[in-house]
């Protein structure tokens, strides 16, 4: 089967992060500092990615700025012609580092915010990071980077989406991504605490629709709908292994964030194999290309060319079979799994915070709030 050129590489250069957001897209079992690839490893991976056709690079984590080599990696990426985004919490983005990143040719910085309300933001992040984030935003703006703000929406903050939009506009963001939580990794663990109500989702969508028009030309607002409230699944990353790849801190290379849920696949490492081999030859990347793998109702469905059967990771995580239709789809016989999850999610949000040293199956510790 012929393969596309990928356009985008997300480089999760570390899983270390000072924040503990309960919706983190990192896997539950995270890499430690000793597992991380070296600067030279990452430079080789970026060069291989460019050779494969990648044009967009995300330097992400964890918090990428916990590594001292982000500036060197950004400079290398620029020398290869990649358009690079630093995906950061803002913590650690001092003026000095921001100036070095500008000199390195970094073009775009995305800072996460947790909420417009400071106490709530602290509670969601599991730490007090707001002053550092606001200072970082001011520096990013002043130095002339393309500046995005990303806010993950969920039950605790979605009612303030209007205030969040005004906060982002006041900080001078060029882009604002309002992303309803996708339930993978830590977010799936915390689904009952994070899931908004249908009424909350409808109200927030109305606010966002108006704001998108009002801010047009100054701040571009992207509003990502929550798929559990949709009738059809999302066309995840434009299809499995078609445009996107992600390299984890230890080199393990995935077609998307959620792929670690699919325990029946083995994902090769960029330490052992070339990115080209992984993209073109590895069994994991070939597993769900095309539509030969599909079952009914996808196989005979005209929407298979639109959404590719939805998300393989969600299908596996929720139904136990990655070749099933994404259960978000109302044509799926297993849609009841989604409807029950929506119904069961209520009450005050009690989070299981993201900690590197605390896999959910283990005992308590680290001061994390456990879900009973």
């Amino acid at each position: 089967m012929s393969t596309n050129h990928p356009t985008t590489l997300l480089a999760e250069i570390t899983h270390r992060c000072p924040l503990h957001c309960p919706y983190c897209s990192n896997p539950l079992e995270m890499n430690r500092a000793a597992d991380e690839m070296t600067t030279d490893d990452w430079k080789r991976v970026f060069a291989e990615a460019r050779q494969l056709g990648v044009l967009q690079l995300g330097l992400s984590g964890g918090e990428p700025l916990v590594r001292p080599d982000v500036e060197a990696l950004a400079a290398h990426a620029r020398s290869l012609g990649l358009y690079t985004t630093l995906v950061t919490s803002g913590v650690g983005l001092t003026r000095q580092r921001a100036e070095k990143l500008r000199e390195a040719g970094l073009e775009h910085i995305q800072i996460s915010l947790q909420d417009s309300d400071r106490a709530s933001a602290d509670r969601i992040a599991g730490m007090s990071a707001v002053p550092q984030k606001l200072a970082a935003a001011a520096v990013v703006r002043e130095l002339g980077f393309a500046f995005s703000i990303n806010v993950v929406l969920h039950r605790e903050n979605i009612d303030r989406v209007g205030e969040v939009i005004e906060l982002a506009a006041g900080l001078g963001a060029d882009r604002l991504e309002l992303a309803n939580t996708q339930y993978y990794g830590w977010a799936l663990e915390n689904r009952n605490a994070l899931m908004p109500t249908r009424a909350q989702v409808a109200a927030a969508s109305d606010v966002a629709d108006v704001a998108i028009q009002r801010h047009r030309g100054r701040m571009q607002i992207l509003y990502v709908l929550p798929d559990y409230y949709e009738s059809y699944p999302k066309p995840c990353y434009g299809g499995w292994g078609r445009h996107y790849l992600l390299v984890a801190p230890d080199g393990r290379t995935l077609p998307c964030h959620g792929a670690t849920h699919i325990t029946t696949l083995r994902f090769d490492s960029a330490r052992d194999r070339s990115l080209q081999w992984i993209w073109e030859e590895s069994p994991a990347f070939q597993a769900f290309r095309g539509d030969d793998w599909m079952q009914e109702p996808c196989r005979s469905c005209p929407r298979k060319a639109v959404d590719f059967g939805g998300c393989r990771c969600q299908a596996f995580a929720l139904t136990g079979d990655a070749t099933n239709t994404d259960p978000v789809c109302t044509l799926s016989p297993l849609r009841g799994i989604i409807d029950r999850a929506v119904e069961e999610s209520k009450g005050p949000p009690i989070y299981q915070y993201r900690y590197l040293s605390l896999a959910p199956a283990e005992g308590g510790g680290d001061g994390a709030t456990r879900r009973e």
Partner: protein
Amino acid sequence: MALTATSVPALWRFARLDFDAVRQQRVLLYPEGVVLLNATGASILDLCDGRRTVGDIAAALQERYQCDVTADVIEYLSKLVERELIRVD
């Protein structure tokens, strides 16, 4: 806002044109996005410098293509205006 022959289009300041040696193709890169360009699209965008009008751009291309391309230029750029990759003063 509809584009006319007197509009002055410019690339969004965070978008840049490049040549992709892998695809052997011109590309438009911007935050979180890529547009793979055909030769005609690239030749239009090369002229979107924030000084030329749509009419100027069409006239320059008319010499190359030997026909009136004003409507094509407007149609092409309107799609990029909608995506906010082309800004018009």
